[in-house]
């Protein structure tokens, strides 16, 4: 069953056709990788899913409901979380506060006027936040300012912020870019572990083929705004068109 259905989506920026005619369906509880060269339109496609951009043509449905025209916070409340290509975190707040905000959003919805409750008094939120920080090995950094984290830690923090909301669909835009190899492997393990623990669908954009081939169950290759092929990792590896268009002389 497809949890996400993208049909005939097109998007132009002035004279540039960033997305041509994208048809893509992501099956429930799978890890679906989207790969392609820089400028292929991968991030643009994600932007069309989360309410950042409205596509010129086509439709996007999540669990049978259209996502087009919905606000970002509404799409998130439906169960779609996104990790951005450049980490979007609350830089002026502490790591712990960064994590608590999505916890509140998950528990209380998109707005709650709790101006007289104390943040300290929210035991359940604190427990949740600490558990996920432990999962990403950042518990000892809980009181640090998010701005002072390393690039890799910022990514892990953002990922933890998304995971703690227990999304149905997690969109990851190059989640391991800028990470050391050890951190990359930790990230792969973390995502696999989450996947084993509960139902979650992941759409992952990634340049690191190690990450792609150790996680993905389906792969779509995007080039110049149109899907070239979609297949299993094994078939993609040997696909001549893919080698030519994207992998080139890359070591696969």
């Amino acid at each position, binding site marked *: 069953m497809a949890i996400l259905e993208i049909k005939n989506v097109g998007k132009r920026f002035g004279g540039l056709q960033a997305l041509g005619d994208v048809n893509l369906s992501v099956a429930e509880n799978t890890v679906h990788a989207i790969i392609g060269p820089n400028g292929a339109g991968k991030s643009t496609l994600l932007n069309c899913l*989360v309410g950042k951009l409205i596509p010129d043509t086509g439709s996007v449905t999540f669990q049978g409901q259209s996502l087009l025209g919905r*606000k*970002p*916070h509404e799409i*998130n*409340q439906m169960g779609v*979380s*996104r990790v*951005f290509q450049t980490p*979007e*975190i*609350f*830089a*002026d*707040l502490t790591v712990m*506060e960064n994590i*608590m*905000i*999505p916890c*509140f*959003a*998950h528990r*209380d*919805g*998109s*707005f*709650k*006027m*709790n*101006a*007289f*409750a*104390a*943040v*300290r008094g*929210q035991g359940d939120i604190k427990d949740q936040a600490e558990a996920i920080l432990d999962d990403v090995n950042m518990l000892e950094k809980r009181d640090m300012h998010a701005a002072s984290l390393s690039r890799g830690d910022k990514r892990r923090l953002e990922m933890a*912020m998304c995971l703690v*909301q227990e999304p149905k669909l997690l969109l990851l835009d190059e989640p391991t870019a800028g990470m050391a190899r050890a951190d990359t492997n930790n990230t792969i393990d973390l995502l696999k572990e989450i996947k084993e623990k509960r139902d979650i669908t992941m759409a992952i954009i990634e340049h690191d083929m190690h990450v792609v081939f150790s996680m993905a169950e389906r792969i779509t290759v995007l080039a110049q705004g149109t899907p070239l092929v979609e297949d299993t990792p094994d078939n993609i590896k040997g696909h001549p068109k893919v080698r030519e268009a994207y992998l080139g002389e890359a070591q696969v």
Partner: protein
Amino acid sequence: MFGLTAKNTRLLFLVIFLVAFAPFLMNPFPADSAMAQFNAGYPDLMQRFVIFGIFAIGFNILFGLTGYLSFGHAAFLGVGSYAGVWMFKLLGMNVIPAIAASVLVAGLLSVVIGYICLRRSGIYFSILTLAFAQMMFALAASVLTPITGGETGLTLSLSDPRILGAAAVDGNIPVPSFFGLEMRSTYELAVGGWSFSFNTGYYFCAIIMVLAFYASIRIFQSPFGLMLRAIKTNQTRLNYTGLNSRPYTLAAFVISGMYAGLAGGLMVAMDPLAGAERMFWTASGEVVIMTILGGAGTMIGPVLGAGAIKYMENIVSKINKAVLEQWFAFMPDGMEKAFVTVFDMFTGKGWHLTLGVVFMLVIIFLPGGLVEGGQRIKGLFSRKKAQDTPSDAAKTPAE
């Protein structure tokens, strides 16, 4: 205590202490000494300290937490003042209905203005609020004269109905009171050369300011306050985290508008007249300066900023040429003239120049405002202590 962290409880008690003993603290010099003009312990000025403190505390909830810089908050203060005076005219001289009406009317107006202005952020938001406030000012000064008294302002008169109280007392307009307790009544205490004034109105305002400060601390440490701070640092992330920033910013805007209305209501409770100049853009700018000078986003900063500015406005502005000549009388003639001329630019009518210089120095050297200054002084002391006991310092380097 009271649902506050230990640190915030200390802060609250510090503020309670300061306002409770302000009549002493503000009057450190004997009444007939040369320094007496630096005394600020007279009722009128102390009332202004706490009233503008409330205004700035509320402004800080919007600007300090969310980063939305409103340039039109004086409109809410002005509207609150008008509403208060109208209650005195229609109902009677009890300050409670007047203040309640001030808060309510300012709150309603801020829902409307906030709803429109918050469609934009950054400089566009600031400009929109400024435009609205200037429109309100223009309306109050001209078209709405029947309601606002136009340029002369709204005053009480003997012919007002005052259906819940006496329209006149001994042929005079009655004065604002809290269930009979007159706001203007003052107890003078003379000790030696000193004299201290304990004014009912001041303590009434002070109690309300402590409550307003307490409420602001609660907001700061609440999940709601956390969301407001999140809006300031990354509104995009907040939206993609499933939170709708609009109702949060609107709630912050309305709360700060109600604080401004409360301040306007207290102003007329102390002195029952209201004028359009209270809504002029310079009045809106003043609360911005108070908040930044004290430390935007800190809890106590706005109170300090309001105090500092009102002190300068009332004390520095009273140092006129004659006073300066007296100060520098000991100097040779030419030198005295030079000193008096230079200082005169910064005192008396020139107090704005002093304010400008102080403001610039604070912004450049203490971007966190007076609060940052206090923290640095504290830091100096604790570093000294650490040097005295190096073994301790080695164990707790973070302290």
